[in-house]
């Protein structure tokens, strides 16, 4: 059995008296690609925020690599994440943003350049060398690409992406799936992602969890039957 990257116990979070998330136990193994699906308000983003210690739980604990996230910040040194646009520093150019993140993770300029070069297909010529265009001036899709690139820049051991396929064109979605698979294969990166698109989740994830009203209602390994199983939770006809 693989080492556990994330361990969640008796986690509960409420907003204005309404329980947004209640998970008794959830373990995510090292090197796993873990998918999270659920309707709007199911608790996906709340779970990611709790894992990243961006919000405080009402009760329960989250551990990353056996480190209690609320007590130590060591886990941040090997964790990359992108949840939404508030994670961007929108008055910087993409280059400034990437080099700043590289500096935080102690990457050399060469390493950053090399990583950005490897992402050229994903960027499709739209992000870099845009003559001092600030991040806020890019389209939603391109801002999404900048955010995702910022999360994977340091080749993190743990990568958390909230609805990464949103706003992306079909080509970029396909490239992103390859990037996720390659990161997992080459660096054994543990990846957590959420999506409303069941196809994407089934294609890239090893394990998928369905959240409904803040609770886990299905936890399954991905195989040929998974799409049909997941579909049944959302009352949608088979495509």
């Amino acid at each position: 059995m693989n080492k556990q990257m994330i361990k969640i116990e008796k986690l509960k979070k409420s907003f204005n008296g309404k329980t947004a998330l209640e998970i008794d136990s959830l373990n995510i193994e090292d090197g796993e690609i873990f998918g999270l699906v659920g309707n709007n308000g199911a608790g996906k983003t709340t779970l990611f925020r709790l894992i990243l210690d961006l919000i405080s739980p009402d009760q329960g604990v989250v551990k990353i690599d056996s480190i209690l996230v609320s007590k130590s910040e060591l886990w941040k040194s090997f964790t990359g994440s992108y949840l939404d646009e508030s994670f961007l520093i929108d008055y910087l150019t993409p280059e400034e943003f990437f080099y700043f993140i590289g500096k935080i993770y102690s990457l050399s300029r060469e390493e950053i350049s090399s990583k950005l070069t490897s992402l050229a297909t994903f960027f499709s010529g739209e992000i870099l060398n845009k003559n001092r265009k600030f991040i806020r001036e890019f389209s939603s899709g391109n801002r999404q690409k900048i955010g995702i690139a910022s999360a994977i820049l340091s080749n993190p051991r743990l990568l958390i992406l909230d609805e990464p396929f949103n706003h992306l064109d079909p080509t970029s979605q396909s490239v992103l799936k390859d990037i996720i698979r390659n990161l997992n294969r080459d660096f054994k990166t543990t990846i957590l992602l959420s999506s409303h698109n069941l196809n994407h989740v089934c294609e890239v994830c090893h394990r998928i969890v369905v959240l409904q009203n803040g609770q886990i209602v299905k936890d399954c390994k991905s195989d040929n039957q998974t799409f049909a199983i997941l579909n049944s939770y959302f009352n949608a006809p088979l495509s």
Partner: protein
Amino acid sequence: MLSDIFLIHPIKSFIRNKRLTRNILSYIVFTFTLIYFIVILFFIGNNLEELLGSEGEDPIMKFNSLIFFYLLIDLIIRVVINNRNGLNLVPYLRFPIKRSVIINYILVRNLFNLLNLISLFFIIPFSWKIIYFKYGLIEALNYQIFLPILILINCYIASTLKLIIRKDIVFFSIPIIILISIAIKSVRQTILNISGLLGEQILNSNYFLMITLVTFLVVIILILRYLYSKSFYLEDAFRKSYIEKSSQTHFLSGHYNKSLTFSYFILELKLLIRNRRTLQTLIIYPFLPVVIIMGIIDGKHNIFLELMFFILILGFFPVLYGQNIFNWESAFFDGKMARESNFTDYLCSKFYLMGFISLIVFLPTIVLFIKHNEYPLLYSSVFLFVNGFINLFVILAGAFNKGRINLNEHYFLNYQGFSTIQLILPVFILIFPVILLKILESIVGLQAMIIICSLAGSFMIIFHKFFIREFIEPLFMKRKYINLDGFRKLYE
């Protein structure tokens, strides 16, 4: 890396500020205003002896007696307008940067708050020019060290209050200020005495007092540090004000098929009260009774100066709200223009809303005027004039706005959507009527002026729909593509 976050990013954030980068005029106005205030404060500091000691009083004693009042006003300004954090912290929360480092940064950054710095522009010249010559070096240095310490205590108390209150208190500030003013009025002399004593003790190098002040400063910093460490989560960074908690009004559904002015009116009212920036356009109104009670009624007055104040207050909402009516967020206008609807009705609803708000403010005012026999007819005629002429003119000028304005942002110190017309219009609208009234009065006399104003205002109110349909709507339609394109730009 830390220098990036704590030095380079704030500078870039300011230089590349989306509100300032929109046009060079904003930069010029901002720089001019800053220089203006610095020069004014420097002038005050240099001439405090003459300003305070005009009645044969000792200027230093007078200055000392005003310290508490200065601190109180300073505290109120800080609590009302200062941001909770000087830096948008959300992007940094995911990085391996210790929270304690960021908290320390916020505390240090508070030291360089603009209000702290500008106070030095009058404290330093005052100390050197007056204290040094009258008392000596030590006393002047005492002033230059301990007055800033008092201001720093104020600064950190304001930050602590902001953190504890966690509400957008801009709108509540005016009633609070009025209550504080009333409370202070009754104990004014006591405060003057205590304040004078405090200044005197600083001047006399009372080391016990100085140690107490420094200790208090340290304690308040430690309290603030503790509060920051407890509240340093995304939910706090994103914590919504009471206005933001109510859903933002995009109002694209349901009401359009009715195509009735009343429906638009209700929607506009919802837009006004459910969004932070629009709600803050109403902020001037609680001042109206205060100005009337303190300035107009039972005072020795200049009628035209008072009329200017009256028009200023009555016209403030139309100027703030009305001239921006086209450039609140883009989604509304895209939806509006893509549907078949009566644009005249829509514009009329805004005109009615402006009139409705003015009326709410005016009714209690006119009661006061009648009670005190203060030209009720004159003010009524001006009310009609403002609601007829000014409100329509404001809507007309609004058609020239092409900058997007996010509804839930702060109004104060926010130049989003502001262009040249926003800078010129308020001056023109608020001063022009007074000049016109003065000319009318000198030509035809006060009684005739009242009649002319009432008739002119009533005429415009009665025929508002005609003016809106024939002048304002065609103007907006002519500029439709320029404006709509401008409203969509997220970064403007």
